């Protein structure tokens, strides 16, 4: 009897027991097809969950790098789209022209998209500015448009060698020609200085048919933004004195959570400017 109690205290007892049970389960796993398949499935499930956990945290640690890769890819794809649309329109139009007139046109694409990372920005002031990490050395200059995946961002105000300052939509000095996508009525996009998610679209005439949720895009009149860039959607509208609507626009870009942007370089901007200035 004393023997029995004594061995209970022995650690070895449990160790040997566990060892023998492990041995038994190894035998079960190796020699019983059904139990083996269950164990394999169980193992796969556990391992799968563990790996996805590890992968998840690893992904999180490399998010910044991944983002940069995606931004580059995005810009690359935009360039491709631009090239292709140009090719498409050119090939139908230019078919009538001589081949050498194509060479005169210079570059194939009108627009080039250059990815950039925001290094500083404000969104709660009346006159907000954004600083990005690309400058003159990257081919950036004043009056270039800046967009993001979610919508337009702003216009470059000034560029130094490695950085540029953007005047975003949410700056009271910002003005942009924008239109209702559905019926092409054009107005002026401004920001009234309160909510960084909402801007004003003015000078849409009263006879224009609009409704809440309509998409607002850039008009392309200014030679800064390409035509048809997403701005936002109509949040609400009312009739102002005179014959114009007062439209509130939900901006597509959330400036509070903006990290990466694309700068739009318009190769034909100067050409257009020159032509327009000749008129004056």
């Amino acid at each position, binding site marked *: 009897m004393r023997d029995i109690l004594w061995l209970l205290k022995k650690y070895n007892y449990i160790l040997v027991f566990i060892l023998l049970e492990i041995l038994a*389960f190894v*035998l*079960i796993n190796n020699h019983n097809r059904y139990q083996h398949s269950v164990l394999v499935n169980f193992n796969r499930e556990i391992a799968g969950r563990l790996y996805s956990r590890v992968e998840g945290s690893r992904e999180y640690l490399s998010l910044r790098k991944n983002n940069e890769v995606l931004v580059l890819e995005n810009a690359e794809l935009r360039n491709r789209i631009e090239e292709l649309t140009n090719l498409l329109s050119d090939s139908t139009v230019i078919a009538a022209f001589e081949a050498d007139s194509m060479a005169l046109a210079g570059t194939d694409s009108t627009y080039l998209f250059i990815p950039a990372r925001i290094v500083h920005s404000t969104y709660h002031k009346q006159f907000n500015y954004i600083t990005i990490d690309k400058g003159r050395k990257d081919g950036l200059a004043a009056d270039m448009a800046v967009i993001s995946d979610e919508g337009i961002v702003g216009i470059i105000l000034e560029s130094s060698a490695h950085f540029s300052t953007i005047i975003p939509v949410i700056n009271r000095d910002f003005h942009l020609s924008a239109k209702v996508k559905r019926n092409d009525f054009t107005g002026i996009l401004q920001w009234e200085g309160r909510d960084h998610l909402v801007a004003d679209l003015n000078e849409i005439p009263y006879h224009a048919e609009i409704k809440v949720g309509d998409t607002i895009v850039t008009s392309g009149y200014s030679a800064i933004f390409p035509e048809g860039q997403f701005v936002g959607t109509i949040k609400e509208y009312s009739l102002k004195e005179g014959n114009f609507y007062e439209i509130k626009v939900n901006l597509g870009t959330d400036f509070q959570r903006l990290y990466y942007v694309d700068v739009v370089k318009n190769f034909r901007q100067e050409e257009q400017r020159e032509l327009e200035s000749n008129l004056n």
Partner: protein
Amino acid sequence: MLRLVGRNILRFFIVVLLQVLLLDNVMLGGYLNPYFYILFILLMPFETPWWLQLVSGFLLGLSIDLFTNTLGIHTAATVFMAFMRPYVLNFFAPRDGYEPDTYPRIHYYGLRWFAGYAVILTFMHHVVLFYIEVFHFHDFFSTLLRVILSTIITTSTVIVSQYFIFRK
């Protein structure tokens, strides 16, 4: 002492042969059969060294597995049963402990004591055995029912055997 070891080794072979040659062919109600061989573990002397209890359990289960082509399943159950035996013995110990020169049998400690001791250990063995056999918990209660019914049958055969073949 030597005689004791010899008797236990002999009993080992008898229960294994009895199990695989005779009782494995007995099917009660379609899927119940008595696992009489665990009698060997129940009857091991009180003084058996702890490691020998575990190893005996392992070898016993392995022997049965080799014959029934279920390698490891009976082994896991018998090792568990052998492991639990000291705890159960301790639980059922008389007030002044087990007497020297006695064995865990009806002859020495009575039917009531032996039945309790046998039912608990047999149940433990069968739980491990049956749940490893089905290897999932979907049919938890139908498996549990089989465990309980088999425990009753196995314990009955074990108790009956105490009055006939393994009296001393």
